[in-house]
């Protein structure tokens, strides 16, 4: 696995360079933070555990309800989106985006960063 500083650099760049992205966190499948760039009001440990648990629960729902392999979990709230996706077998990526974000572009940007991050965390 790449050093935490390298992961932080990639995630930081993703958050600052992509319009409407408000934060991101890369966490282990068991819910520990690898790196995060989150708004100051958010608790990193809790956010990491919630993201990994949520993705796992979504995968279970996909299996139990015969929905196949889960691409992503999206929570759409009045203030924006939280998107959780697998980053290979070794990490989960959480992305926070503003309400104004275009979903198609958001998912495309997430797919791009996953390509960069996946080899770094495997």
């Amino acid at each position, binding site marked *: 696995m790449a050093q935490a500083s390298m992961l932080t650099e990639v995630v930081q760049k993703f958050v600052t360079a992509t319009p409407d992205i408000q934060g991101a966190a890369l966490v282990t499948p068991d*819910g520990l933070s690898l790196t995060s760039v989150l708004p100051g009001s958010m608790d990193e440990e809790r956010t990491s555990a919630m993201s990994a648990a949520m993705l796992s629960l979504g995968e*279970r729902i996909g299996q139990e309800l015969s929905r196949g392999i889960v691409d992503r979990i999206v929570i759409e709230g009045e203030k924006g989106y939280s998107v959780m996706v697998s980053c290979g077998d070794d990490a989960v990526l959480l992305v926070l985006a503003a309400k104004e974000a275009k979903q198609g572009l958001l998912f495309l940007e997430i797919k791009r960063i996953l390509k960069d991050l996946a080899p770094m965390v495997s």
Partner: protein
Amino acid sequence: MTREKLGGFISIVCFKGVITGMEEALGERATSIALISAGRTRGKNLVTELGLAGSNPSLEDLASKLDFALGENGTRLCKVDKIEDNGDTIKVYTHETVCSAGEEQGSSRKCTYSMGAVCGAIETIQGKRYRPKHTESVLRGGTHDVFEMSMIG
């Protein structure tokens, strides 16, 4: 509210019922994440209440303090026997963990809440962060439930 007749302890059977019920509804992994996270918070709060946060005692002293807080004189979550430092990782040797209690020999059950509590306590005492893993089990031929904790920052 205190329980006048029943006191502060519940049966392991009921605690295990909570775990297996959560596993049934949420799946093993999501349950494990939730319980490890809950354990970490418990461990963190416990050592803060005891005034040990940031105290960084010797590992022998740390094991003894954790055993006192979590063992037979404390909340009876588990017995903490010793802690070994192997550089970037530390190994915590425990037994009579609530997670392994009541399980058949050979069971694949892994410690979650107990491991999280021990990890959260040590993290708060030392001011470091670890990724814990249950590496040896009394249910699978081990003499102890061993939690190996790798430093992550």
